[in-house]
């Protein structure tokens, strides 16, 4: 065993091994797979269908046409999928703490977070990815965007940054579960619900107090809205400075570094339930 401790499996290899095992487990249920994916696409698609019906009648929402709205929706949904595919186990955080499941992660020679995230996985976020990329591809030609290489790179940075913003909020709050035992309602029913409900709309339709709150208290605007304004040449109508919109994709990595440190910091307060 001493060799294991002195020659541990590299962190990235640990991650890939456990990731592979988690997916192999999920793919055993093929019959349900296709319908779950279709269900996942429809779950997110029904919001876009609503927007489409409104635009079909009124021509716009908040001055944005269908191409622009679909682009915003696609960016947000793809960013959402990009974090929920690797991090969907965060859903079970409370339960894992309450059951004392972290005991076994702490004594094994692999990263605690790596083991926790790949304990199992959920295929439904793949439906989000299919839906998000599909909408994004369809909207990228319909929306008035100049597709230079810089714009493509900026879009990719936006999706990665947006995914990290959402992920950091969830991971940080999960850290609190080590002490508070239960943060699910706050994470999923409050924050994730706000992100999913309001994230796909131009913030100009909301009252100004809410616009401020969704930018600076809960950084929803940084996930997709601010960078989408940059790509759509709409920074003029923003109530924040254009440079802030340009820099929006940088918030994700900064928040994630903080959330990661915080999660491991809180892990020290984990008390096994003894079951």
């Amino acid at each position: 065993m001493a060799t294991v401790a002195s020659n541990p499996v590299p962190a990235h290899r640990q991650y890939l091994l456990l990731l592979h095992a988690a997916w192999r487990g999920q793919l055993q249920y093929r019959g349900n797979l296709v319908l779950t994916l279709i269900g996942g696409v429809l779950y997110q698609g029904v919001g876009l269908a609503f927007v489409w019906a409104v635009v079909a009648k009124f021509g716009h929402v908040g001055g944005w046409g269908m191409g622009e709205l679909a682009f915003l929706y696609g960016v947000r949904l793809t960013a959402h999928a990009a974090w929920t595919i690797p991090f969907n186990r965060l859903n079970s955080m409370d339960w894992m703490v309450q059951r004392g499941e972290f005991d076994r992660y702490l004594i094994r020679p692999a990263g605690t977070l790596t083991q926790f995230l790949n304990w199992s996985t959920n295929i439904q976020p793949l439906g989000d990815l299919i839906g998000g990329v599909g909408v994004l591809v369809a909207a990228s030609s319909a929306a008035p965007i100049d597709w230079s290489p810089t714009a493509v790179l900026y879009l990719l940075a936006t999706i990665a940054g947006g995914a990290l913003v959402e992920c950091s909020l969830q991971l940080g709050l999960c850290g609190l579960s080590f002490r508070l035992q239960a943060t699910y309602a706050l994470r999923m029913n409050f924050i994730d619900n706000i992100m999913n409900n309001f994230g796909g709309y131009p913030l100009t339709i909301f009252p100004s107090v809410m616009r401020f709150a969704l930018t600076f208290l809960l950084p929803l605007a940084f996930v997709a809205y601010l960078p989408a304004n940059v790509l759509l040449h709409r920074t003029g109508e923003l109530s924040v400075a254009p440079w802030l919109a340009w820099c929006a994709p940088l918030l994700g990595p900064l928040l994630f570094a903080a959330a990661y440190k915080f999660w491991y910091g809180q892990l020290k307060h984990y008390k096994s339930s003894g079951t």
Partner: protein
Amino acid sequence: MTLDATLPAQRLDLGRRLRAYAGIARVLSRTVMAYRSNFLVGSLGLLMQVFLLRVVWTSVFPSDGRTTTGGHAVTLGAQIAYSTLATVQFSLFSPWQVSMVPQRVRDGTVAVDLARPVGFNGQMFFGQVGFTLGNAPFALLALPFAILVGGAQPPSSAGTAGLYALSLLGGYLISLLLGSLMGMVAFWTLEIQGILMVYRMLSQFLAGALVPLWFMPGWLRGISQWLPFQGTTYTPIAVYLGQLGGALRAIGVQAVWVLVLWLLLRLVWSRALRRVTVQGG
């Protein structure tokens, strides 16, 4: 094991059967109370949805607050009242658990249900009614808050209110029958989460729970009008707001759907009974 398709030889008389169904409904309504902390959390999502719909409709309506569609006028106030009522009503009538059947099949308790001297479909039906009755006080409690973040309008007359009550009953029966039909799928495949998700999303949209039929593009309205889903949500609320020319005719259509779906359920059930597999027996 596979059960023989023979039903219990003796059926109970009507009075005793009704007492049995009432008992099942009572038990199920109490299971809701055990999870009442879910109520606060569930209501939060509901209120967000109501608020979002209000904001979106307000942003797109012309500044004089009225628009015409398909020949009749809709005011912003009526539209917000529609979306508020539709959201609350849909959440009560169409819970994520559309039927008790999948759970009973999955854990094998379907064997006990089949052995009881009252019909299986009746038990499932009244169980679901109990579930709704248990949830109803919470929906009524959420309603004033929904009206606060959304909006409301009184019915135009006492007659309209009466027609609304009738149409609401029709809408509930259609919701229940559709849910029961979906639940039957569990006899063919145990993994039905995917199918139920697809059903829920399609039915929510086609019911008019997000966009009323009067704002749907013509072809989609045509499709929705020929499907039963609109009877669950759109019809009662359009009747309430006085937006339907022929309210009685719309209620008649609901009644036809109740009959058709009920016959369909009987047909599906007669097939499902031959496929019953008891898990963990």
